[in-house]
């Protein structure tokens, strides 16, 4: 909230500028090196002007011949070469500094997003996050590579020039001294208004990006509803709004640089005219006049370029806003326990410990209450089925159990240790998970099965695939286990993706297994076979499964019926038939399935 009110006043959130400033430390000494090199180049420039003025003065007023001025010309040549070298070096140093920052920030952001976890991500547009992690980080480059070094040089180089001009002609120096501060003053006045617009612009770019991802992923759906033409208009409209927005920002930026250039040009002209007349009246030596005239444009140059540099800063602020927001996001998934205090988990410990959920309340940030006062015990080595109508809170329960969400009240105990006290990685090593919509990663089928276990042999991969009833279709693929699969497993059916994900779970061989509607999308024959495999997997392990189909539930040692965010009943199949009306209703419906 404070962020919004502040940007309405047209001032960037101090948190953002502070963050940008803090991130500078990632660049090490490279920024200082870039400034030092730039400063040396500035001093050489003054020397060059001195040599040039000396040469022309000698030729025009002392009637010197070429041979007389040759030593100065050689000196100039040496300065040229040095300046070229320094230009290269300062560019390299500044860029290197920016790269260090970009690398550090991208790693930090990605790590934080991982920490925030999948439950947080499901409420965000991934297109937007991706944009921040890729283009957003890139937008920091100009800030560190150009803006920061330029901001130091903007003071140092003109100051050095001013010293020399003072030594040559104090009137010109006075004009420069008076007009120079007007430029940044002017710019700050104009720049204030554009900063907010620029931040909005960055947001609209992120929005455009997220919208395109959504549209492209849903292109087939759009075609099915003949809405793809309509969507073309929306794309046109969004692009056009983006153009208008960008132009409105740029127009102000151009106007501000117009004002700067105008001020600088007028000042140069004033200095030139005054020098001209004093030369005409014989009040000034030509050498000093020319020397000053050569230096004046160089004095204003960095100030004039400030417009472009300022743009880099605004762009960085726009990009950094989302980064600061993401980094400031509290992980609602398990925070890592304090160093050294985290409990490790060895062997098959989790399978031998009861898991107790005590009085769990969970409400999503948007106000949906998913679980209220839920209590449930999961016994070691049992197969627990969780059933209940759609939206009753089964998935939320699983997310809490996996540590992707944290309850607002109540606690989860593994044996006697509360879940937050256990190292998240140690806890996650304890279970395998098959989600509702498994994700395939680019790579081979074998790589996908090996996800949690990259060293697994091909034999082990095949064995896991066989247990998941996936071996037959994988073997029939053009390159078998080496077939490359793409995003969302295009080229594979939903059932096939599910079975590859199931093979992953088999390969992980964890003491605790969580199946989220594991047999959805499988045809009946495969389902029957997978069901047998799941039973085998259950031996010596704790198995928790969400299920809609009662035949999957049949093998469970106990069944928990979840209704409206609470555990309605727990019991065996037979017990529940007696005691639970919800369960009875489900079984009856199931009977109608055949």
């Amino acid at each position, binding site marked *: 909230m404070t962020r919004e009110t502040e940007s309405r006043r047209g001032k960037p959130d101090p948190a953002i500028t502070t963050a940008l400033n803090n991130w500078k430390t990632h660049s090490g000494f490279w920024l200082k090196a870039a400034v030092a090199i730039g400063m040396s180049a500035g001093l050489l420039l003054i020397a060059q002007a001195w040599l040039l003025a000396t040469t022309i003065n000698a030729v025009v007023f002392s009637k010197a011949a070429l041979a007389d001025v040759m030593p100065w*010309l050689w000196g100039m040549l040496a300065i040229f070469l040095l300046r070229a070298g320094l230009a290269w070096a300062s560019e390299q140093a500044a860029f290197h500094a920016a790269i260090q920052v970009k690398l550090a920030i991208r790693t930090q952001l990605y790590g934080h997003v991982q920490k925030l976890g999948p439950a947080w991500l499901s409420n965000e547009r991934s297109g937007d996050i991706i944009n921040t992690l890729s*283009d957003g980080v890139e937008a920091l480059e100009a800030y560190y590579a150009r803006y920061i070094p330029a901001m130091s040089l903007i003071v140092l180089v003109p100051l050095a020039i001013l010293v020399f001009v003072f030594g040559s002609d104090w009137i010109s120096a006075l004009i420069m001294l008076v007009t120079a501060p007007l430029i940044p003053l002017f710019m700050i006045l104009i720049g204030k208004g554009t900063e907010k617009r620029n931040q909005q612009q960055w947001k609209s770019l992120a929005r455009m990006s997220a919208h395109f991802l959504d549209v492209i992923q849903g292109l087939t759906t759009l075609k099915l*509803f003949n809405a793809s033409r309509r969507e073309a208009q929306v794309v046109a409209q969004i692009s056009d709004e983006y153009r208008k927005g*960008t132009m409105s920002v740029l127009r102000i930026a151009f106007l501000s640089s117009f004002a700067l250039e105008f001020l600088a040009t007028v000042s140069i002209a004033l200095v030139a005219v005054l020098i001209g007349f004093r030369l005409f009246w014989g009040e000034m030596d030509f050498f000093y006049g020319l020397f000053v005239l050569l230096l004046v444009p160089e004095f204003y140059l960095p100030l004039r370029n400030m417009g472009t540099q300022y743009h880099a800063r605004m762009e960085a602020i726009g990009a950094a806003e989302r980064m600061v927001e993401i980094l400031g996001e509290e992980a609602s998934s398990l925070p890592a326990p304090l160093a050294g205090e985290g409990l490790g988990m060895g062997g098959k410990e989790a399978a031998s410990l009861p898991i107790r959920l005590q009085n769990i309340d969970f409400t999503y940030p948007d106000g949906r209450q998913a679980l209220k006062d839920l209590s449930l015990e999961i016994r070691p080595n049992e197969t627990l089925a969780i059933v209940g109508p759609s939206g009753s809170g089964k998935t939320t329960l699983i997310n809490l159990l996996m540590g992707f969400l944290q309850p607002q009240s109540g606690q989860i105990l593994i044996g006697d240790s509360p879940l937050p006290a256990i190292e998240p990685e140690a806890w996650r090593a304890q279970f395998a998970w098959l989600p509702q919509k498994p994700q395939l990663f680019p790579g081979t089928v074998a790589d996908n099965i090996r996800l949690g276990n990259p060293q697994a042999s091909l034999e082990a991969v095949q064995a896991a695939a066989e247990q998941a009833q996936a071996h037959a279709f994988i073997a029939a693929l053009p390159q078998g286990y080496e077939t490359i699969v793409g995003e969302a497993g295009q080229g594979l059916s939903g059932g096939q993706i599910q079975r590859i994900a199931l093979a992953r779970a088999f390969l992980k061989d964890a003491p605790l297994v969580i199946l989220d509607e594991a047999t959805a999308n499988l045809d009946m024959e495969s389902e029957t076979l997978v069901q047998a495999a799941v039973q085998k997997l259950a031996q010596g392990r704790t198995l928790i499964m969400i299920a809609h189909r009662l*035949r999957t539930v049949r093998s469970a040692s106990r069944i928990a019926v979840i209704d409206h965010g609470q555990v309605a009943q727990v019991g065996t199949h037979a017990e529940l038939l007696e005691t639970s009306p919800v369960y009875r209703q489900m079984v009856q419906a199931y009977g109608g399935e055949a």
Partner: protein
Amino acid sequence: MNDLLRLLRMFKPYWGWTVLGIFLSFITLLANVGLMAVSGWFISAMAMAGAAGVTMNYFTPSALIRLAAIVRTAGRYGERLVTHEATFRLLAELRVWFYQQLEPLAPARLEAYRSGDLLSRIRADIDKLDTVYLRLLVPLVVAMLATLVFVVVLLFYHPLLALVEGTLLLVAGVFIPWLMNRLGHTTGQQIVATKAQMRAALVNDLQGMGELLVYGAAASHASEINRLSHELARQQQAMSGLQGVAQGALGLCANLAMWGMLLVAIPLVSDGRLAPPELAMLALFALASFEAVMPLPLAFQTLGETLAALRRIFELTDMQPAVLEPQQPLPMPHTFHFAFKDVVFRYGENADTLHNITLDFSPASKLAVVGATGSGKSTLASLLLRFRESASGEILLAGQPIQHYSGEALRQHIAVVPQQTHLFNATIRDNLLLAKPDADQAAIEAACRLALIHDFISSQPQGYDTWVGETGVRLSGGQAKRVAIARALLKNVPVLILDEPTEGLDPETARQVMHNIVGHVQINQQSLLLITHRLQGLEQMDNIHVMDAGHIIESGTHAGLLAAQGHYHYLTSINKLLVEQTKS
């Protein structure tokens, strides 16, 4: 280079903007060079006049200085406005054009691409094209014009001066950029490719974050992103090295030109062949004139990136759609009678997915296609929807080959619940209105009641205005499915295709939803094609085809197929067995 010409041809509608931008840029440059040269001449001449004690006309040069100063400042402002406006107009148009090219390719041709990759094409690659006009076309034309003018002006003073200036401008404007282009070409392409790779990896990682964490692959995927990030940094550092060299070399050229002017002009002044004030003028002129070629190395260097981006865009848009639309489509028939005759289908060069499929799908009939996953059921639907073309055999609609109808017009009459439903990141209402933008609240609610999702939606704090998360993740699978069913029912067209409609629903809901759909279809005289591997509610179907490995192995009604004691009977009996085990 051909790609570049193709792009330039797309500039045509913006011809006026383009020329105006170049003109403004050119006069700005001339004003700047003029300002410097006249100033140099002015103070030398004033000093000489002062020293000699003669009078001089200082009104003309000082007026010239004022004019040049005004033209320079105003010209730069106008030039920036015009060139940027032109660029963004073009980019907006290009993006729509790209989307329109992409649309006919979906879904058959786009399956091979990752959506993150497509995203990077539609947005980042197209943005990259702003360099073509802004940083390539305008600077190049201006540099050529300016070089010509500068050399001609110097010829009036001395041919040798023109030679020095011309040679160094060529080195700075042509040789250095050419060299940079050669050296930066590969790196430029690598940068584009690495960025796209990183973006695609991020898409996958974020969408599959849960699995990565649970399977302990999060660290390795993070290090992969880190590797790509370092790779990109290395490439960018190499590119920046080139940039530094180019900048240094360019400054050197400008200084050398000034130096050359002095070397040639000093003897001329000594000889009295040049007026002394012209020495300062020439030196300052030479320095300022290199502004004309300053932007060129950067332009040519980014050309590598631009061309790579352009290639990726054209590569995609040049693909042939899987299905060609007829030149003169037949008008849509009044009744929708589909007939498959010996239809064969295969994906690319692979083995046949469908073998000699013959079936009849008549108006207001209820047809079911059952069979195991991968038996080719869904392919039937995509042929019917004109998303794919059969390899042989024919599909007739109202007695005419289906190829003679426009796919878009055909799809207007078919509502589909696809196996993988996509809900857009918008409100539930917006997602429903996709089917029928003018539907009123009553119609929306009626459809949602049939799909048994109305109660859930109304229980949400925002009701029908509840926001659906990206790809519908904030709804459970079953809820999303039911929204998709409601969407299809809302469309209210003669043909309804359901591909595994009850997947993800609990049995009670599944049974009721199917019951409602069948009732709805009967009342509205719609034809229904049900594709499923679940043998539930099939008694109500008029005809059932059992598919296995691309063949129809059995056909008939539920009762008929049971009586035949074939595969259908076998599947049903396994199912029964399981149910009985469950109930006992």
